[in-house]
């Protein structure tokens, strides 16, 4: 049986998720026995176009990205969004709340018109995507697990539960008690609550759970004497695209 051919692609991103893949391969080198990597520009010179599984890092931020994404979609039997930029728009979407012309001029001055850019979007806004590995960056163990599941022909499933579940299981002191805001109650878990474990509140990089209860988050923050405004600012870091879509929906429902 021939090995499944996989390829890695990057769009607007820091390439940190691909680096995490390299790190994951360091400790799971046996994965290289069961797949064939045919394209991975950051790590190899060979370039094969006969891939079946495409891992895509980065957001779509310009028209030429769409063309490239559609070409990848045509070839690949399966497209996997790799990390927050591809999955959610990630930090790239922070600027979606600002005037595009203003953003361009701030960085490029009178050469602004040279840029090809538009608001940042997750790749699923452009092409159908079979699976997503969330996080900024991705969790290397989760990446290995997802690859194994895909190779077994299973759809990877990440339990739809908030980060608080595993944070409690780890025995962490709630960061609310340390006077910090945290998006754990509305954020999809699966990262082993790494940020609260290292003393920082969750910033929501893995995306919202399916039914985020933002009112309840607000109450919990108030109970602990914490600012909802600070939490709202956090909701516009990795989650800005999702929040803006939610706002559109709410507006569309006439609320």
């Amino acid at each position: 049986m021939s090995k499944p051919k996989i390829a890695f692609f990057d769009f607007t991103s820091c390439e940190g998720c691909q680096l995490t893949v390299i790190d994951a391969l360091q400790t799971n080198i046996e994965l290289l026995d069961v797949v064939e990597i045919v394209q991975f520009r950051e790590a190899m010179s060979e370039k094969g176009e006969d891939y079946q599984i495409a891992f895509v890092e980065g957001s779509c931020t310009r028209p030429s990205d769409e063309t490239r994404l559609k070409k990848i979609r045509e070839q690949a039997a399966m497209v996997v969004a790799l990390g927050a930029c591809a999955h959610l728009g990630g930090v790239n979407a922070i600027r979606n709340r600002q005037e595009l012309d203003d953003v361009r001029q701030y960085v490029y001055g009178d050469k602004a018109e040279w840029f090809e850019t538009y608001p940042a979007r997750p790749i699923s806004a452009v092409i159908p995507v079979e699976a997503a590995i969330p996080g900024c960056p991705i969790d290397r163990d989760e990446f290995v697990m997802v690859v194994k599941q895909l190779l077994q022909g299973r759809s990877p499933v990440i339990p739809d539960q908030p980060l608080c579940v595993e944070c409690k299981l780890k025995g962490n002191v709630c960061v609310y008690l340390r006077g910090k805001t945290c998006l754990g109650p509305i954020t999809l878990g699966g990262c082993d609550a790494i940020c609260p474990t290292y003393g920082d509140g969750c910033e929501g990089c893995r995306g919202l759970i399916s039914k985020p209860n933002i009112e309840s988050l607000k109450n919990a923050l108030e109970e602990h004497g914490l600012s909802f405004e600070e939490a709202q600012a956090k909701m516009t870091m990795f989650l800005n695209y999702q929040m803006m879509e939610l706002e559109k929906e709410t507006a569309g429902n006439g609320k």
Partner: protein
Amino acid sequence: MANNTMKIDVHHVTRVEGHGNITVDVKNGELKQVELAIVETPRFFEAMLRGRPYLESSHITSRICGICAVGHATASLRATEKALGVEPSEQTVLLRKINFHGEILDSHILHAYMLVAPDFLGVGSVIPLAKSAPDVVLRALRMKKLSGDMCATISGRHTHPIAMTVGGFTHYPSNDELYRLRERLEEARADVDATVELFQTLDMPDFERDTEYIALRKEEEYAFIDGVIASTDGGTWPIEDYRKVTNETIVQHSSAKHTANQRESYMVGALARVNVNHDKLHPKAKAAADALGLKPKCTNSYMNTVAQVVEIAHSIEDSIEIADVLLERGIQWEEPVPPARLSGEGVGSCDVPRGILFHNYVIEDGIVVGANCIIPTGQNLANVEADMRALVPTILDQGKEAVTQSLEMLVRAYDPCISCSAHMLDVKFE
């Protein structure tokens, strides 16, 4: 056919971070065009920082780059701390240094072993080497794992650090964790020696072109965090005067700005640091430099990778010494130093794996209102092109394939980090 006409178009240089294209056009022996085009998407980080609470800056800007995440976070924190009058504790400074060494090691090992070594061993990537030279690959993986674990011990992970914050840390390693890390650093000395031996056997191409080399400098140590800007052409500048050194200009074919100081271009990175700060290297790193034939001032850009190997030796030794100081003191729980004010302007500078980096913020009432980041790879672009212009005529008779290979290796030697550098435009050219 005579080699007096040649067109080279490398669309996306491989084994580098980000998207760059090389174009060379020679007609009748005359060099018409030599360009390294940066076609990375514009990132707009400076614009995105505006309106954000100051505590978020280091977490947002670490996302500029997955490889230099700790470097960006550190420069960002220093900029914020200077703006808000925060003086971090001695323990914070020491922990940040180990974390920084972890990133230098991780990045240099990735570059030297996985991106550059394949060129010399006649393969397209490190993957086939796992079968043909398993000891080399396993050593690289072992060293890379250690460097990642250094960052994980101090700040939670390398990409992207968690526990580093304005004024200190939100989490501390235990003395036991630090002790175990120190033991592994000591064990890594054998791997460092083997790395130096390996690079002694790899012949770097002969190519000399003198240029200006710029790096941070400190009297008390080999500088990575803070210091003054220093040049091999003479002169030092406080980091607040970075704009006088970088003089950014926009060029049509690059989404990253070009820079120039006292000549048409300058070089930053490991080779520039060794050229500026050779006297501050750890004795073992100096010995490695001698063994590898690297003497300041070295004017062969291909030797940048060799300078990285020298820094691998330095970072391991310096980390052991810092760990000793921390273990002697014992890790203390410290709350981060609070800001003295909530408005101000500050410049932070670090010499990250690829060279000198600047973050400059203006903060008003705790909110960032202005930001500027100048990235090492952007500063190197004009120098890469100047190298290519000098190199191509001397190797034209070797044929297109060899010229292409030499140019790709040259670009790779700079270890460009293109996603970082592209706070710029995306322009098509002919």
